[in-house]
């Protein structure tokens, strides 16, 4: 069986380190306003590209910069600036949608991947973009049979990209789905003047609606008011079929998600892909993987359109169905490297021996562990409360880190 590349979403340094530690083969991220998560508060900047390149290259992880918003004339120069920065800092490729980006990247000799915004759904289109790009993500609306047809076509007709290699096909493997075709949605633009295609989606689709027929005044009876909010995509339970469809790259959605989401999702898919590779993939294992995926943010899962369902499945709640949630407890205070002791200052709530905790920070990434032994103000203790100085044995932490307690989510 051929090896599938696992591609992780990174909205900030926490997620990037978590993804790399969790075993991602590649990461994708945006900088400045030129990406589909422009509204996010913590985007990377051009200045981060150097460190991203160095960090990921030293871990043999490929790096893809998303440059896939629609582009106006006043953006042309920032596009050029970003593409030359990609080249300078050895970022592997740019993910592009606009022809200006395709053209500029090709001219500069930067590898191009085709974004989902271009909605690739057939072999002809693949051949067309092969003039510019080596990797293409297929539209999320395709079934695996349709995907297979395209990947077969690529090898039969020997469709190669600028690098001289056969075109590699990528699909979305896990995460949020959008109600619009390949994210081309105008709802947010109409309601809030805030274009999803400039990365500023306000997520109108995730709210509740009632449908009234203006002619008769009748309200349509809809048993679930989240009429536009699809459940999240999950492919882990038919990953064997995904692999059979000839897909080379599995992309995980979630640049707006928390670092522990990235860690859990990537770790789980890493195991699943490795299991496929060494022939130990089984429904038994799938059960365990599903439980782990359900423990982090999700709107309930379905298989998307890959298995050929005709109707979408819709989410029936406002928030996450994650089985666990995090509660903020303490901030990093000090680390004693010799005895490997971490010191935190408790700022809220309390924490007990035996609690499951989560530590995140831009350099640390994500640490998840159980507290077997804790000390308060230097003395062994059962629990720590607000104001206490909490210490315990742990991998390296920093003063920029935050400590959370993981508790069962009461809402599910």
């Amino acid at each position, binding site marked *: 069986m051929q090896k599938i590349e696992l591609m992780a979403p990174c909205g900030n340094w926490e997620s990037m380190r978590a993804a790399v530690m969790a075993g991602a083969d590649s990461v994708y991220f945006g900088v400045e306003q030129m990406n589909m998560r422009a509204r996010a508060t913590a985007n990377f900047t051009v200045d981060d590209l150097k460190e991203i390149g160095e960090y990921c290259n030293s871990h043999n992880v490929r790096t893809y910069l998303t440059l896939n918003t629609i582009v106006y004339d006043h953006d042309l*120069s920032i596009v050029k600036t970003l593409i030359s920065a990609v080249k300078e800092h050895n970022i592997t490729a740019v993910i592009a949608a606009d022809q200006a980006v395709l053209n500029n990247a090709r001219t500069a000799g930067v590898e191009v991947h085709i974004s989902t915004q271009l909605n690739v759904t057939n072999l002809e289109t693949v051949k067309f973009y092969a003039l510019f790009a080596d990797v293409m993500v297929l539209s999320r609306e395709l079934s695996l049979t349709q995907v297979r047809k395209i990947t077969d076509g690529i090898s039969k007709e020997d469709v190669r990209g600028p690098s001289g290699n056969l075109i590699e096909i990528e699909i979305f493997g896990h995460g949020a789905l959008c109600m619009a075709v390949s994210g081309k949605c105008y709802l947010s633009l109409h309601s809030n003047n805030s274009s999803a295609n*400039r990365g500023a989606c306000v997520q109108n689709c995730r709210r509740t609606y009632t449908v009234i027929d203006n002619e008769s005044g009748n309200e349509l009876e809809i048993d679930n008011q989240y009429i536009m909010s699809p459940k999240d995509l999950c492919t882990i339970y038919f990953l064997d079929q995904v692999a059979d469809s000839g897909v080379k790259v599995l992309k995980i959605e979630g640049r707006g998600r928390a670092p522990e989401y990235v860690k859990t999702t990537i770790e789980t898919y890493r195991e699943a892909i490795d299991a496929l590779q060494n022939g130990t993939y089984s429904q038994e294992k799938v059960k365990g993987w599903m439980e782990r995926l359900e423990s982090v943010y999700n709107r309930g899962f379905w298989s998307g359109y890959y298995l050929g369902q005709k109707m979408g499945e819709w989410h029936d709640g406002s928030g996450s169905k994650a089985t666990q949630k995090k509660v903020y407890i303490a901030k990093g205070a000090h680390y004693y490297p010799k005895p490997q002791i971490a010191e935190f200052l408790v700022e809220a709530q309390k924490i007990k021996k035996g609690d499951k905790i989560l530590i995140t920070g831009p350099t640390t990434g994500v640490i998840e562990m159980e507290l077997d032994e804790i000390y308060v103000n230097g003395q062994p203790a059962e629990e720590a409360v607000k104001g206490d100085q909490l210490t315990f044995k742990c991998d390296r932490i920093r003063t920029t880190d935050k400590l959370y307690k993981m508790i069962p989510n009461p809402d599910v």
Partner: protein
Amino acid sequence: MIAVTLQRNKCIGCNYCFEIAPDMFRMSTKDGKSILVNGEDKRGFATVRVHDEYEDKANQCKEVCPVKIIKVHQCKVKK
């Protein structure tokens, strides 16, 4: 007089403010973000004082900005 403020690092370059008030805003051809014409920069917030007759335009820009980074204030007049 009114004061118009722009927090430009959060700008997503959608062009709308410029569309409404081209004499108040300009799109930078360098980084694709909006520039407040004659704005004085203070820690990332550019501010300019303009005549009251611009108030409507300024308020329209404030309304239309998808990331809400344009603010309009009445300037305090010293008596």
